[in-house]
């Protein structure tokens, strides 16, 4: 099976003052001032909702790195959220509440899991890759259910957020929001540096034609594996943030439909564009929130919307803005 995505190698290097650039700038600016709005109106819920948006956007950005630029459709990305979250939760339960330990542990554990899954799954391609990443994530889900000491099926409450030796107080909601925002910007920066580097060119080249990349001498497997591990580590950090955000973790966080949500965010925003996953995360979570206020049966509308996006809207929201069709 050949790689299924149309290569648009120039997409990331294209000049930025386009409708999509403007949209990305607007979204970033709005996110930057959102706590001010929340403070002025006393709308604490908006702050909570958008903290969640930021955290899941980090997850979507990391998924976009492998899926959008690398053509690796990983259907197990929620596992990293869970591993990162459980790293924080388990350490907190065992009395280690320093964020200087917890967060690196979350990143390291996710990276290690990504390494194992990557070594096994990157040997395969196409639909095998989708299903294998899905299956391993499901394994982690069941492992978490089996962890009786850490709540099993019921989940685990985290009584203290990660401590940063008095430097940062994550209980301050506005501060926590800006921590998430800064980490989102950092992950966007890292992804943009990666995809525009020589390393990134190999990854993107392997998406278009892996055989050719190998023929000209690149060991694509190793490149893809490193990329896969970077994405996993990044999403693990998002998991650590999510655990701090909700003060609670449970296996439900890793259910495979959560991985589906992340894929939806990336595709909705526009595959393989830097800010696409951010826009996708904002749109998807707001849509979800809006629909559930509007009707008792939100997925009755959301489901067909996704189907229509899959059938008609290639390139997601950014693709629509560009008026270009892919695939």
């Amino acid at each position, binding site marked *: *099976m050949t790689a*299924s*995505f149309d290569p648009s190698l120039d997409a990331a290097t294209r000049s930025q003052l386009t409708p999509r650039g403007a949209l990305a700038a607007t979204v970033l600016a709005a996110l930057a001032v959102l706590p001010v709005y929340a403070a002025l109106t006393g709308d604490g819920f908006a702050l909570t909702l958008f903290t969640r948006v930021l955290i899941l956007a980090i997850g979507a950005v990391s998924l976009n790195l492998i*899926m959008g630029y690398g053509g690796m*459709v990983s*259907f197990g990305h929620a596992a990293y959220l869970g591993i990162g979250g459980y790293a924080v939760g388990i350490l907190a339960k065992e009395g280690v509440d320093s964020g200087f330990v917890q967060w690196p542990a979350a990143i390291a554990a996710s990276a290690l899991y990504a390494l194992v899954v990557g070594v*096994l*799954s990157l*040997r*395969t391609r*196409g*639909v*095998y890759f*989708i*299903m*294998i990443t*899905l*299956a*391993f994530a*499901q*394994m982690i889900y*069941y*492992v978490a*259910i*089996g*962890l*009786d*000491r850490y709540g099993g099926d019921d989940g685990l409450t985290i009584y203290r957020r990660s401590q940063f030796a008095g430097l940062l107080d994550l209980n301050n909601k506005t501060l926590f929001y800006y921590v998430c925002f800064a980490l989102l910007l950092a992950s966007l920066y890292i992804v943009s540096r990666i995809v525009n580097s020589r390393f990134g060119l190999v990854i993107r080249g392997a998406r278009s034609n892996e055989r050719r990349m190998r023929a000209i001498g690149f060991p694509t497997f190793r490149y893809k594996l490193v990329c896969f591990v970077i994405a996993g580590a990044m999403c693990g950090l998002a998991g650590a943030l999510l655990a701090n955000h909700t003060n609670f973790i449970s296996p439900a966080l890793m*259910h*495979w*439909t959560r991985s*589906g949500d992340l*894929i*939806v965010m990336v*595709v909705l925003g526009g*595959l393989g564009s830097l800010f696409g996953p951010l826009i996708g995360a904002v749109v998807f979570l707001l849509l979800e929130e809006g629909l559930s206020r509007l009707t008792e*049966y*939100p*997925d*009755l509308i*959301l*489901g*067909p*919307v*996704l*189907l229509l*996006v*899959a*059938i008609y809207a290639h390139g997601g929201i950014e693709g629509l803005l560009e008026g270009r069709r892919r*695939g």
Partner: protein
Amino acid sequence: MLYFVEQCLNGVQLGMLLFLLAAGLTLVFGIMDLVNLAHGSLYMLGAYFAATFAVLTGSFVIAIIMAVAASLVAGMVLETVAIRRLYSRNHLDHVLGTFGLLLFFNELVRLIWGPAGMTLSLPPEMLTAVQIIPGVYYPIYRLVIILAALAIAALLYVLVMRTRLGMLIRAGAANRQMVAALGVNIELLYTFVFGLGAALAGFAGVMQAPILTVQIGMGENILILAFVVIIIGGIGSIRGAFVAAVMVGLIDTVGRSFLPDMLHRVLSTNAAATLGPALSSMSIYMLMAAVLVFRPEGLFPVAGR
């Protein structure tokens, strides 16, 4: 020893159930090249249909027949309305579109049947146990599941390998354009194949309904097991799906029953109690990983893919 035989039979029964699900998935993937995440929804629908028809008709057997027929129709309608528009898309779009369908069906079931689950009770003659070998009694209904699934596996084999329709299905998998050019209504053929997959999934749901509760999302986790089965068996291979389904069913069931005890012998009680459930749920994924290392295309790879 008796317990072991019983657990093995339970494993075979789970394997048969997985085969019914995996056969539909692998058929649809092998022929239409479609990744269908909504397959579990058809399993769920089958169970809800059966529970509903059982209440309406009062007969278990009639309910099963009607539920399978309804699943077939539901699958064919779904294919005509939505799925066929996805064939020309890439796998990621399949994932997105059928994920949307899964959300839609879960919500639709909640709208129609309500958030509480349903139960499907067995007729009294199914509630007894029979003595299969001296000293081992086994619930007759579970034996019925095994036999029915075996019969379906045989029918499926005859249908695909021995009939004209099966020949067209195989030809359609090999070269769609050529079959269409020869005057075969390939769209109708696809609709039928998808409906067949839906009916198999529906039947699996029907058979499982009396054992578990009929509830929303019941197809989601078992769908992943069916994926594991077709990865191990080789995507597109029905024979592979059968072998892998029995393997997965046996290893999962036997692992869950005996691994915790085995751990107790080598580890402290505390460590075994923590590790046991976690490890035994990992066993089939370990099997999958092992198969992938040695046979990345599965045990029965389909040529030309």
